[in-house]
């Protein structure tokens, strides 16, 4: 699963949805793989505006990436090739192959195996 996925998922437990602590989920013991992809600056420019920047900063930190700028790049900052390349590498080239995603609210752990995260809940939580 690509790192950008973390920006679009939250805890599957219904009661957690309203809690700010359930987003973003936190990566633990993540094994990363780099999958080279041709750089598409236009694509990154169109993705960034829809990214939740604070959540992405948290994710990047947990995965040991160099810290991202404090505020989301906008306007001219999105013409800076290095910025776009860094984001391309983080969002689209980095894959999480093993590990878990943990909810900051209920503590539930979602296992990631061979790049597939399992969000099915045990029956007592459904």
């Amino acid at each position, binding site marked *: *699963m690509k790192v*950008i996925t973390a*920006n679009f998922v939250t805890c599957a437990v219904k009661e957690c949805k309203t809690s700010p602590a359930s987003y973003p989920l936190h990566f633990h013991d993540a094994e990363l793989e780099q999958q080279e992809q041709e750089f598409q600056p236009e*694509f990154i420019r169109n993705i960034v505006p829809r990214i939740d920047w604070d959540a992405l900063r948290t994710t990047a930190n947990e995965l040991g990436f160099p810290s991202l700028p404090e505020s989301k790049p906008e306007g001219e900052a999105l013409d800076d090739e290095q910025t776009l390349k860094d984001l391309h590498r983080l969002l689209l080239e980095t894959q999480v192959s093993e590990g878990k995603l943990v909810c900051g609210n209920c503590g539930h752990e979602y296992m990631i195996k061979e790049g*597939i995260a399992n969000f*099915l809940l045990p029956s007592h939580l459904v």
Partner: protein
Amino acid sequence: MLPTPDTSHVSFDTIYEPSEDSYLFLDTLSSASESKWLIERFDKTKHTSPLVVEVGTGSGVVLGFAAAQSEKIFGRRDILTLGTDVNRNACLATRETVTNAIKAEQQPNSRTVHISSLTADLCAPLRPGSVDVLLFNPPYVPTEDLPRLPCAVDNDPAATAAMSRSAKFDNDSYFLSLTYAGGADGMETTDRLLDAIPGVLSTHGVAYVLLCKQNNPDVVKERIRGWDGWQAESVGSSGMQAGWENIKANVWGRWNCPYSSVTIEIGGGAFTCALTKALDRVADIPVKKLTTILVFYSLGPHGNGMVSYFTSTIASKGAELLIPTTIKLGMGSSQEALADAFLVQMTQNKASIFNRNRHVVKIIRLP
């Protein structure tokens, strides 16, 4: 015609094989009217990269098509695609189908991205308001019972690997039942998805959901129009004329053979008897719709008698027997061989148990 994504790598033991309903989905998305609508809705000059999510991806053929044909369908390639399925095997298959389809159709310098396939119940882990386009070909066949929802342990590859043949068969049947069994009116799972739509779709969101006639699409559309700020319309349909095809028949065959629970007497016709009893158990609707049955018996003195019993039972249910087919297997054939032969015949003869009339309903959040 735009190419259908390759699914030759997919094992259909637990995964729904692309069928006419899947193709209706592909045709609807790529139709001139829908692609025009989507291109305007997600106008490249005004909107960020859309997130396209398919729920219940199965083989991944629909999501793979949407991804690979993004330029034609959405007028742009900077699309993020994500799939969910309750079956981990389907997630693995989908990832491969989608990435292969993208590579086959798009140059490396301008490619749609598959961000992940998640094992999940419908949209459960998706962030509220994040989905721009939602695609769902549901388990829509009316059934007496709804199969239980799998939990994390059902998808443990190590557990499956350790199963006996009959346990594996039961497990496969269970996962296949999840691909089609929709409970009351075939709507129990679709209803849960519909309930989730207002929460998960973005302000520009649109959902495409496939329904069959027994789901009462007109009632469903009326219900959605009753929500505040939503519209629903049929944008694709198939099977207005009479016709038969193998929709869900292959999985139906597997699921309803009381295969692991009866002793099959090769030569005695007990399998046919058991099959008839299974038909008695299924809900009224499917049995009444049953117009083609493959008669299945083995060599032996009682075989023909069982066939007559079977035929008259079907007739008493008001159904017709159109293509009686004989599958002859020798003494000592295994249960697996019987079921495999049955499935092959079901598919080859395009046996149909359901009226093929289906709609793709588009659910739109109004501005």
